[in-house]
């Protein structure tokens, strides 16, 4: 039953992987969709590249938050140091999974939703260049919830180990 006794590290890594791949996936989808929108705008107004690039990059932060959580889980749980032999019970492993859930789920969904705001924002900036800053702020209001989710995950991680 060596496998069962190793369930802890497996769960932990699974949780960390969730935190990394779901928001990363969401960010990738969001950034890709925005890149297409930006390409359309650039065909008419190449000068907007700098401004449009920032708007495209905004939903990319969720992926970073996910990676950050991934890294915190690995270091805090001890997997980074001792790998598969780390002493984690299966119940503890599940706790790490639970800690990863907020940023994994909210990160994924909020990246996609933020992309919608950015997408219309790019269309707005194409017409009125001076509205750039406001578009950023509107998009960031969505990101607030990814940040809160990150905060929830991070606080859980810190209280676990």
């Amino acid at each position, binding site marked *: 039953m060596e496998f069962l006794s190793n369930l802890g590290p497996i769960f932990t890594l699974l949780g960390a992987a969730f935190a990394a791949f779901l928001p990363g996936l969401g960010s990738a989808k969001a950034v890709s969709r925005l890149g297409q929108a930006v390409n359309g705008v650039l065909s008419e107004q190449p000068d907007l590249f700098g401004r449009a690039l*920032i708007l495209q*990059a905004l939903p990319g*932060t969720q992926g*970073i*938050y996910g*990676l*950050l959580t991934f*890294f*915190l889980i690995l270091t805090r749980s001890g997997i980074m140091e001792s790998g598969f032999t780390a002493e984690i019970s299966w119940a503890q492993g599940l706790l790490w999974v639970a800690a990863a859930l907020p940023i994994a789920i909210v990160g994924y969904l909020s990246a996609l939703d933020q992309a919608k705001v950015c997408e219309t924002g790019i269309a707005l900036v194409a017409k009125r260049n001076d509205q750039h*800053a*406001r578009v*950023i*702020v509107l998009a*960031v*209001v969505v990101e*607030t919830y990814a*940040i*809160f989710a*990150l*905060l929830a995950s*991070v*606080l859980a991680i*810190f209280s676990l180990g």
Partner: protein
Amino acid sequence: MDKIKILGLQSDKQSIMQLLQAEGVVELIDTGLTASLATEDDVVEPNSKSSLDREYLLVDEKEQQTISEQELLIRQKQANLESVIIKLDNKYPNISIEPADLRISIQDLLAIKKREKAILSKLEQVQVIEDRESDLAAEREQIQREQDILQDWYDVDINLAQTSTERTVIFLGQLEKSALKQLEDELVELSLAQTVILDLFEGDRYYLTAIIALKEDQLEVDNLLKRYDFNALPIKRQGKPNRIYQANTAQLERIDSYFLELEQELKEIAKNRLDFYILSDYYSVLLDYYAANKIPQNTLYTFSLQGFLPRETSADVVRQIESNYSALVEIQELTTQDDYPIMLKNNPFSGAYQTILEMFGAPNTQEIDPTPGLAPFTFLFFGMMLSDVGYGLLLTLACAFLLWKRKIDATTESGKLVRMLFLSGISSTIWGFVFGGFFGDMLTLLSDKRISFPYLWFNPMDEPQKLLIWSMIFGVIHLFGGMIMRMINEVKYGRISNIIFDIIPWFFIIIGLGMMVGGSSLNITSFNVSELGKWFALGGGVIVLLFAGRDKKNIFSRLISGVGGLYGVINYLGDILSYTRVLALVLATSVIATVVNFLAVMVSGGVIGWIFAILILMGGHMLNLALSGLSAYVHSSRLQYVEFFGQFFEGGGRFFKPFSYQTKRIKLKKENINQQEENNVF
């Protein structure tokens, strides 16, 4: 703000408008009562107009028309200029322009008019050169294509122009080796046996052939050859292939040297492209002037004009107009009840953060300028969120370089942003020392945990809960700042009761609730903090409950309003919780930095390993600085817009936009043009 009314002679109109533009302190009021309205009247009652008026209207229409035509012409010229400027900028980004900061005097800007023809002819020259270059490129490509084919035919000793004799036609071309036999067979089959296939040259997979057929067979042979993928030689020039090849080579050299000459010429022009910049901006100024010229209301001999201008400049403007022209100028001092555009005045520190307000929108004429309140908190929160000595110093140095070395204009939009980031970088450095961050934990990792960067207060990575509490405490202070701003506004409006019943109780409620939650951890024994907090909160709550609906007569609806008022506690709670983002962003910055350091240490070791490690460190930290810097900027702005402004800001004003010299590419030195010297500057 004052309102200025000018009544002047038509003959002075141009000069006065130009004076106003040069002064750049008056925002013209477009009353919309321009010629278009007048002509409408003219159509409705043509007979009631006096002859004088009608004469005037005709003149005015003509004037407008010529102005429009001129505008159109200038716009075309400007568009041409801009397209050439963009091309030159893209082609020669390395050729610098003198002066490097593009700062010239207004005289130089206006003097460009004398050289307009010369500059425009230079512009034409650029276009001619470009046309010629594209012709040359096309010719070059054509020759090059010939050369590629001729290379195969180089050793073939025949005249390529020889495509027929008296009774035969000659097909020159390439034939696949495998097709030769079949072709010969089919020629026999179709009784075209008089056709001769000469192998001129044997290549790897093909023959170069001359196929000689009788003229009467030409069509059939041609069709047959098409089926065998016979690749006919497209060159029909006099001479043997090697001769043609050599001639072509010489021609290519001539083209290349000519091309170089043209490039050199273009480069010379690019060195002087400042002239193009100036002329393009001159056109912008001129277009502004024409647009403004449509604003004054005209009669036959006079015009009248209204505008807003800052109070401290009004005396000077009046003096300038009255001393130079016979015009009637009246200044009306505006009160806050009037509607006028907003111009903010702040000290250098707060002024640097004005850009955040400008992004949001102008305050109205009656309320307080939020900038002095917003500035210190943006400074604080930006610094906390980035909080790294390394990143802070990098940001500060980069902005200092832009401000003092590159002399970026601090009055432009980007200049203001750089000024704000400069201060924010300083704040980040300070907070970096407070939290002990230098490129994350770079020192600790690189020294193998022997030394670590010291912190002045605590390390958020070790005690995140502590920072969580403190971000909310800073948030409460920020909200209180907003409430104080609201109190100042209420004093301005003279609504003291709002302060007593709507604002002060909330101070007690928030502080009281805070004491109830955190009192036990304060270790104060002389009195019971939680108990005191409870009474604070209760007292405040009762005042809100009783007085939130104080304008209602009915006791029940008044109490219901009071309960609704108490519901505001949810809003405050939401606002305060929103500040926890500070913790998340502090952690995000330092954890990403840690990951970068971790990766670098992982690959380090050996020369190649260290090269990679350094590359990872530089790239990773630059990326983190960009991302975390953007987050810090955006989220500290958001805290202002939603939480801080939510307390007091009404807005709805518009910013002061004086009629002035607006240039896009060059910058103007601040000096006044001597108006007396030349009345018509354009």
